C-alpha cells in the first residue's frame, strides 16, 4: 500500500525522473528468460496463482478478476500484454499484487526472483527500438551484476493515459 500513501510529489518525481537519486529496491520477476523489476514500494503482496474469473468482452491480456480477501482485483497476464507466447502455469507462477494510484491489480508472471538494490548509476534509459518494439512502459534498464533488469513503469503499463475511467489500458 506504500504506493497509495506516497505523496503526490514523490510519485511525480518517480514517474518523471523514473527513480530517486540513489536508486531503489526492485522486486524482480521472470517472464521466460527475461528479468523485469517493479519498484518494491508499489508491491502489496505476492500470492500463488489461483483460478480467476474471466471478464466478458475484455482484451485477452486481462486474465480476469480474483477475490482478494473480499475485494475484486483485476489480473493482467504480462506475457499476453507484451505479446509473448503463453505457457502453461507451473507451481512457480505467481500473481504480484501492485498498487496503481488507488487501484489494486494483479500481474501474472512466470516466477518471482530477488529483491535487488539498483543504484542510479546502474540504470540507463530505455532503448529506442522505434516502431518495432513498444517500450514506453519501461522506466529504464537496470544492471545488477551480469543481469539485465527491465524496470517497469506500472502506472503507464496498467493505466490508460487517455482515460482515467479505464484503468487497464485496453490496447493489447
Amino acid at each position, binding site marked *: 500500500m506504500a504506493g497509495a500513501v506516497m505523496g503526490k510529489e514523490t510519485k511525480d518525481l518517480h514517474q518523471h525522473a523514473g527513480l530517486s537519486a540513489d536508486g531503489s529496491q526492485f522486486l524482480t520477476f521472470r517472464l521466460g528468460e527475461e528479468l523485469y523489476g517493479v519498484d518494491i514500494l508499489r508491491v502489496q503482496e505476492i500470492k500463488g496463482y489461483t*483460478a*480467476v*474469473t*474471466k*471478464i*466478458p*468482452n*475484455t*482484451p485477452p491480456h486481462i486474465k*480476469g*478478476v*480474483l*477475490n482478494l480477501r*473480499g*475485494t*475484486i*482485483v*483485476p489480473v493482467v497476464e504480462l506475457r499476453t500484454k507484451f505479446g509473448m507466447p503463453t505457457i502453461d502455469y507451473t507451481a512457480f507462477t505467481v500473481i504480484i499484487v501492485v498498487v496503481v494510484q488507488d*487501484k*489494486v*491489480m494483479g500481474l501474472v508472471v512466470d516466477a518471482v526472483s530477488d529483491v535487488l538494490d539498483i543504484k542510479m548509476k546502474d540504470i540507463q534509459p530505455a532503448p529506442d527500438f522505434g516502431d518495432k518494439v513498444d517500450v514506453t512502459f519501461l522506466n529504464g534498464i537496470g544492471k545488477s551484476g551480469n543481469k539485465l533488469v527491465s524496470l517497469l513503469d506500472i502506472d503507464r503499463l496498467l493505466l490508460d493515459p487517455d482515460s482515467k*475511467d*479505464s*484503468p*487497464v489500458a*485496453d490496447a493489447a
Partner: protein
Amino acid sequence: MRMDNEDFSQFQDAFFEEAAEHLAVVEEGLLELERHPEDRDLLNKIFRSAHSIKGASGMFGFNAVAQFTHKMETLLDSLRNGQKAVSPSVADLLLRSTDCVKTLIQSAKTRAAVDEETVQRLTAELAAANASDSQPSAVSTNDTAVQPVSAGNCSGDRVYAITWTPPEWLFLRGLDPLQTFKELRSLGDLTGVTMDTSRLPDLADLDPEKCYLSWTMQLTTGKDLKAIESVFEFVREDSKLSIALVTSKGESEHAQKRAAATSTAAFDTETIKPLGQILVEDGLVSPADLDRALAQQKRVGQILVEQKAVTSQQVEEALQKQRQQEAVPLSKKTDTASIRVDTAKIDKLINLVGELVITQSMLSDLGSRFEMRQLPVLLERMVELERNTREIQERVMSIRMVPIGTAFARFPRLVRDLSAKVGKKIQLVLSGEETELDKTVIESIGDPLTHLVRNSADHGIEPPEERLDNNKPEVGTIRLNAFHEGGNICITVEDDGRGLNRDRILAKAVKHGVIGENDKLTDDQIWSLIFKPGFSTAEKVTDVSGRGVGMDVVKRNIENLRGTVSIKTVTGRGTTFTLKLPLTLAIIDGMTVRVGKETYIVPLLSILESIQPKAELVKTVVGKGELINVRGTYIPVVRLYEVFASEPEYTDPKEAILLVLETEEEHVAVMVDEILGQQQVVIKSMEQNFRKVEGVAGATILGDGTVGFILDVRGLIEIARHGNPVAA
C-alpha cells in the same frame, strides 16, 4: 456557562437529532391541529415537544433557540389552557415559528449567522398573539417586549480589560483574591486571566504575608462599569485598578470581520489579543483614542469599492461565499451519520451472537477429537452454524432498516404549502408508513419523492372549478403508499388529477426530435418519454415545478438505488407513479446460472420465469433475429454465450434454458446452460479496482471463493443489439 467544549460535541449531536424529532412532532401536530382545533391531547403533545426543545437548547447554551421557543410555548400554553382558541392564523403563525426554530437550530449547528429580522418579526407576532388575548399573562408579554433575542451567549455584550494590582496588605486583612475572581465570573465570561509574577522577590526576601501579584483579565458582560467596580469594593483601597471598555459586542463583531478580511488571525479573547487591546493595556493609547481609530478603519471590501476595483454587489457575493465556507466545514463535522436502533433489536442480536459462540465452541470441541462416526453430529452442528449466521446477517441488516414514515413526514407540510401556493385544494393520504427500508435508501428517495409529489400537485390535480366541472370532488387527493412486494419495496405516488396528456407528450417528443413523427409507440413507451432529459410538458414554468430537477433526475436517482419507476395513467382519472426499490443496497437475491464453465448471477427481481422451449416455439426473423413464443407473445432471445463471447455447453435452445427477464421497457429471453440455484449475494464493486463492464452490474464472491458476475439485464440487451464493445 457555555458548553462549547469539544467534550460536549457528542451530546450536541444527540441534541440536534432529538430537536429534529421534536420539531417533526410539533409540525405534524400543528398540521393535525388545523383540522382538529379542539384536540386537547394533540395540543399537549405539541406543548411537550416544544418544551423539550426549550429545555434542551437552554441546557446547551443555545439561548436564541430557547428564548424563541419560550415565546412559542407561552402561546401554546394559553391555547392549552383554553385562554385562546386555535384559529387558522394562530396555527399558521405557530408553523412559521416552527420553521424559525428549525433555522435557529440549524444556525446553532453550523454556527452561521441568524436571520435576526425574521426572528424579531416572529417574536413580535407571537407577542401580539399572546397580547390579543383578554387575559394576557403580564410576565410573558413584558418579557417579549423588552428583551431582544440575542443570537449569541447570555453572558453579555461588552468586553472590559481589567488590570488589577492588589495592595500588599491584602492577605493581612484576610482577603482572598480568588473570591474576587469568583465574583467577577458571576458577572459574565471571564477570560484571558494572566498573573504577573514579576514583582515576586527571591525566596529569601519573600514575606509570605504580603501580596506581590497582579492580574490582567477580560470580562465579557452585560453589566455596567459600576457593577464591576463594586466587586473590588473591599480591596479598592491602595489597589491599582484599571477597568477599560475594549469593545462593545457590535464592535467586536466588526473587529472580527475586519480581522478575517485582512486575513490576520480572527479576534479571539482566549488566544490572540487585537492590537488595539494591547495598546490600551500597555497604556499607550486611551480606549477613546482606540475607538476613534477603529471608527475610521475601513473594511477591505469598502476600500476596494471606493477605488472602483469592484462593485459593492461583487463584494457582497464574495462575503456570501466567505460565510458559506465558514459554515460548510462545521456542518460537515457535525453531520456524522448515526442511526437510532430499537433496543429490542440489539438484545436479539446479542442473544444470537451468544448462540453463535456456543455453536462455535461445540464445533471446535467436536473437531479436536473427531471420529468418523460422529459425522452426523458434525453435519447437524454445521446446519446450526448456518442458521445462526443467517439470522445474525438478517438482524444486522435490519438495524439499518428504518420505517419509511420518516421520509413521508415532510409531505403533509409540503402539500399544505403547495396547495396554498397553486390555489388548489389537495388532501394528502399517507399509508404504509411503518414499512421498513434501508436508511441509505430512505435518505436518497426523499428528493425524488418530493419531486413526484410536487408534480402531482402542480400538473396532476386540477383547479377546484375544473374538478367540479368534471364531476369530481372539489378536493383533490394525493396518496402516498409504501408496501412490500416480493423482495422489493414499492412506493406509489397517486393522484386523482387529469392524468398525463398523451398528445401533448407526443407533440413535445416530436418537436424535440426524441421520436420521429410517424413512430408508433405503445402507451407505456409514451409515458416513459417524460423521463427523458429536458422534457417538461408544463405549459408554464411555475415556482413549484418545471424547475431544474426534472423527471430524468428522478429516474436516475431511483436507478442508482437499483430501483425502477413506472407510470400508470388514465386521462381524466389520475396518474400513479410506482417506485420499486430493493430492500437493501448491499445484498440481493440472485439466481446462479451456468454458461459453459462460467457462473453468473441473475437478479431474482428481474426474472419472470424460466422455460425449456420446444423447438417449434423458437422462430427467426430475417434469418438471424431469434424470437420465442411465450404463451402467444414473441420475445427476443439473447444467447448469453454470444453476448459474452464464451464457450457454452449447448447452442441449441431446445437443450438450453431460457430465462425470461424483464426490464422497465421490455421482456427478453436469455439463454443459459443450466440453473444452479438461488442464493443471496453480496454486491462487490467492479469499478473500485477496474472499470465498468458492459452487461455486468457488479461482482460477488461465490461459495467456492471465486468471483461471479451479476448480470445487468439492460446492458445485455444493449450488447445484443449493438454488438459487443471490444470485439466490434
